[in-house]
Structure formats: C-alpha cells, structure tokens
C-alpha cells in the first residue's frame, strides 16, 4: 500500500453561463458571480480519480490537500466523497495566478504530512491554467515529475506512466516518491456516491494555518511580484454571417473554399 497525496483547488464553476463572468478592469480581478458556488477544478477531480484507480489496483491511502479560504473544505469533502481517505485545508487566500506561492505552501504542507510515495496534481487549475504547481513542488522536494500523464501504474516501488508529448505518447518508468500531473485523457472523474458523501460528512477535516506548517510569508518575500498581471479582460467576440452563393452546389463549395483560403482558415 502506498501513500498518495492529491492537491486540489476550489475554483469558480467553469460551466457557469458566460454572461455571468465579470471582471473588474480597475483592480484586474474577477468579480465572484452571485449564487454560483465554487467547485473543485475538474482537472483536480481527475487527479483524485487517478489516485482512486491506483487505490483500487493496489491499495493506497489518499490524502487530499488544498490551500484556500475556509470554504475550500468543500473541495476536500468532495474528494473524500469520491473515495479519498483524509483531507487537509491550509487556510490562506492566494491570488490564483501566483503558482509559486501556491506550490510553496503545498510543499510545506506535504512535508508536514511526511508519508508520501506519490503526489498527484491536475493538469492545471481550470481557472488560471498555469499548470506549474506540480513541477514546482517536485523541484522543491527534489523528486522526479512527469506532466500530462494519461496512465499510471504502480509496480512495487516504481511507477510506470504514459505521458502525452507533442506527437504521441511516451512510456516512462520512475522511482517513487514522485510527482505526477494528470492529463485530461486520464478519464472522467467519478460522481460521489450518496454513502460516499455521508462518510465524508462524518469526517473531521483539520484546518492548518500557515504557521502550523512553518510558512513565514515575510521570509519568502513577495512571490506575486515575480509575475505581474498586466491586463485582465474578456475578449469580445464578433460573429458574422455570410451566405456563399453559387449556381450549383459544387460551385458554392468552390467559392466557400476560396473564401476560407482568403481568410487563411485553410
């Protein structure tokens, strides 16, 4: 049996109606839409799913960690309901795009958990999409990392993984402990069962402060200053409609092809 840690993040529901997504151009911040609850980033749900599959395959204890406001406990509960064993909330609100700080806090939390053979993260957070946290954690812990993994197998103390590269897949073997970020192709995350939710509700979920895990923000300096968000905006979409004429269907098709070439679409 191995110990797996999964990092999850609570985000704005990416499925919310596009019209509800509003930003404040003054402060470069997203205005939280009223009435739409936060959800676990779907890519992180897939990370939990990957861990659960390993658990089913060879037994594992899965601990879920999240950094966020106190309501992030819901992200942990959701993961427990899916089948994870333990969960921890580190209470601290981070600007979403500050991957370095996120990874630093997670690393400290992981060191506090002590026992880990495998750390799984989602491909990227579905809100800011930086996709850096997993790699930074690995670097900080000094262990190997494979990104965009579509399949994970545990063989004794080694991992066999398939990861996606530009023009195909790559099979790799690596020792544990290691960090894996899973790709979308790992497959759909399961929906929690009713009894899963019930046992998650009955669990006590510890909440750690930065102090508890020995993070001193004044020591690490202003990580956010390393990245500067220049402009946050919603792209304007323009839609138009043109009817391509032609005496025959073939002629219309030829004209269409011509137009598409002109527009450099093909």
């Amino acid at each position: 049996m191995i110990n797996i840690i999964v990092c999850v993040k609570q985000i704005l529901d990416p499925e919310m109606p596009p019209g509800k997504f509003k930003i404040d151009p003054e402060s470069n911040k997203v205005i939280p839409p009223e009435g739409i609850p936060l959800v676990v980033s779907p890519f992180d749900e897939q990370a939990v799913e990957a861990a659960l599959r390993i658990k089913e395959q060879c037994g594992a204890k899965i601990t879920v960690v999240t950094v966020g406001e106190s309501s992030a406990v819901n992200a942990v509960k959701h993961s427990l309901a899916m089948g994870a064993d333990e969960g921890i909330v580190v209470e601290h609100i981070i600007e979403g795009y500050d991957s370095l700080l996120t990874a630093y806090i997670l690393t400290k939390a992981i060191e506090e958990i002590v026992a880990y053979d495998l750390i799984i993260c989602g491909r990227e957070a579905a809100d800011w999409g930086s996709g850096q946290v997993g790699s930074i954690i690995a670097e900080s812990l000094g262990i190997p990392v494979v990104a965009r993994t579509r399949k994970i197998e545990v063989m004794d103390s080694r991992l066999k993984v398939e990861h996606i590269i530009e023009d195909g897949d790559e099979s790799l073997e690596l020792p544990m402990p290691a960090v894996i970020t899973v790709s979308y192709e790992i497959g759909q995350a399961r929906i929690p069962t009713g009894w899963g939710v019930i046992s998650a509700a009955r669990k006590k979920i510890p909440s750690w402060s930065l102090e508890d895990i020995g993070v001193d923000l004044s020591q690490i300096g202003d990580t956010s200053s390393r990245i500067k968000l220049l402009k946050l905006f919603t792209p304007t979409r323009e839609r138009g409609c043109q009817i391509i004429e032609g005496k025959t269907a073939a002629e219309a098709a030829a004209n269409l092809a011509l137009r598409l070439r002109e527009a450099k679409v093909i």
Partner: protein
Amino acid sequence: MEPTKFDAVVAGAGPAGCAAAYALAKAGLEVLVIERGKFPGAKNMFGGMLCGSVLAQLIPNFWEEAPLERYITRHVITFLSREDSFSIDFQSPSFGKPPYNGYSVLRAKFDKWLAGKVEEAGAIIVPGLLVEDLLWDGNQVVGVKAGGEDFPASVVIAADGVNSLLAQKAGLAEELSTEYVSLGVKELIQLPSEIIQERFNLEDDEGVTQLFDGFCTRGMHGGGFLYTNKESLSLGIVIQLSALRRMGVKPADLLEEFKSHPGVRNLIKGGTVEEYSAHLVPNAGINKVPMLYKDGFLVVGDAAGLVLTTGITLDGASFAFASGMAAAETVKLAKQNGDPSRKTLCNYEKLLKESFVLRDLETFKHSQFFLDNPRLYTTYPELICNLSRGLFTNDGKPRKRLWQLARTEMGRQKLSILHVAVDGFLGRRAI
C-alpha cells in the same frame, strides 16, 4: 461503527424538508437529507415573499443572518384592463420593525443558507442525488433508494415538493390534476437598488409586493406578481394549469405581454433579465390534501398540497415550515416509542389540525371555487379601471355621478346586480 440506518431520511431540502431535518437534528436524531439539486435551492423558485413568524419559532432571530432581500412594508394590488391600471396601495412603517412581517427572498440563496443551518445542527445533506423509490418491508416504508443505493430509515419524510413522486409511490396521493396546480413563470430582473428605492417609494431595505389581477392572465384564473429584491425585481405570472391548457396560450408569451403592459413596463424599465424560471404550485387547498402518513412515512409541504391561496395571499413557505416541524415532533415521538408505524405517525395529522396549517386551509376552503370565477379576471378589473377612467376623465362633457358611471359600465360588461351580489357573497365566504 457508524450508523447505517437513520432515524429519518428526508427527501428534498426545501423549506419543509429543512424544517423537519433541523428540528430532528437539534433533538439529536440521526437525519439524512437527500436533495436532487446540485445544491439546495438549485431547483426552487417562488414568487417572493416569506412570512417569517413560523421560521422564527425554529430559528429565533433568523433575520439577523439569513440572506433576505428586503423586508416588506408596502403592499400593492393592481387591477389591469387592456391598457389601464387601478391600484390599492398600503404602506406601513410598522411592518419595518423586527420581527418583520415578511421578506422578499431568492430561493437559490435562501434554501442554501437554510440547508447550511441544517448541517450545522448535525444532519447530513447529500445534494445532487435523486430519490427514485421507497424501500418497503411489507406495508411499511423502511427507507429510500437513490442513485442505485439504499438508505434505510425508521421514517421517510417526503418533502419533495409539488410533483411529489414519492407520495404517489407510497400510494397516498393520486396523480395531480391540472385544475389543482398553477404554473408560475418568472423573470429575475436586475436593477440598481437606488432606482428600486426611488421608483417604489422605499427606504433602504424596505420592499414592496405588488399583485396584479386582470388582463395579465387574459382572463385565466391567476395573476401577476412583482417583488422587490435588494438589486433586482422578481416579476412573473401564475396561472392555473387547466386554464392554460384550455386557452392554448404560451406562458412565455404571456409573460412578455405582461411586461409590456403600460402599468408594468415602466416599473421594470432599464432592468436586465438575469434568469428565467418556472415552477408549479398546488392551489387546491384543503380539498386535495392527501392522506398525510402511513407506516414509516410522512408527507410535508407542497408534496401534501399544503399551500394557502386566497387571491390576495399565496403562502406556501409558512405551511412548509410548520408541517416540517410537526413531522419532526412526530418522528421524535416515534423514536421514543420505538414505533414508527401509523399508530404513532397519526400524531402528525393531529398536530396539523391543531395548528394553523389545516385550520387556515379549512377556513379558506371555498376560496378555490370562488377564484375559479372568470369574472374576477375579466369583468371586475375592467370595471374598476373603466370606472376610474370615467371618474378622472375631463372631456368637457357633463360629468356623471359615480353611480351612473357604474350602471353604464355594468351594462357594458353585461354584469347584473345579481352577479355582483352572488360574487360578493362567495367572496365574503372565501376570503
């Protein structure tokens, strides 16, 4: 060992289910609430006014923390003819002191908050799960089936709202008939709070309810409503489903027509629609309340048709809270006696008969019949509007006295004194 059987499983986290679960959890019983919405409130819509007095019995001073929109200090009733409108307007600052008389509420937020209180009290809520069936042991209900899993319980409380598939499955309720439900369609219209306050003559958090009778339903049994929220208006119409079915009118078209009426248009001017919703509401009152219990099973709230409609009030939430609380009392008793059979559960009906729930419905048992009278939605609103127009018209012709105007108008509406007398009698009996 963690318990695998609950003292009560509640199907539905609306006001009725939450009230029951809250009271039970507070008393230390093991309670599970199963809600099909992604979160409690996700499936729920109502017009807009919550009367707080019953909820205050359960959660004292709830107004200090609940997500309420505005407390209602002004009530307007408006009669509409094709173009004109005539309003009765009552405003009282005395409604603006705790415990307030009523609040405008948005269900997605309010129900979520209430369910949070239920969890705090110690019950477990599983959202995103649909109760599909009941578990039986002979004639006794012994739990529910949801998402393919079994959830055993001593008592199942069906709080699953107006389309209560569970009360039907338990053999207590028949299939609803279109005469006994109304369809409500509503738009949530965003508007800055300053504009709302100015437009509706309100201070700070004060709010108004406005009910419309007449042209907005094209003569069908029903009416229009407008409630002010903090930064939005809830605007909609409620129409008896059988009338809608007969008339062949599309509810969405009717709502657009309502919005463009001169008496309504300017109230919503400058607003942006944020949501469009629809929901049924029971309207038969006491006449269609089903059997309320059987072995291991209780029905509460809309699922039992416990809604009061008098034409001036539409109150379902208080009835949902009160019936939920009565159900909780009964389940506590069942736990004490170790007997969840009908012998104990019949106590639920007794409690409802003693409380305002069945008493109010009994008092207003004739209102359904009265409200079915088409003259209420055509003749009278038009009469009132036309009379007023007559009174206020300055056209250089000799003026008529009110009585003369009324006579002419009644003639035009083919309304006899007898009609008025009969309707007056029925109305007195009904409301």
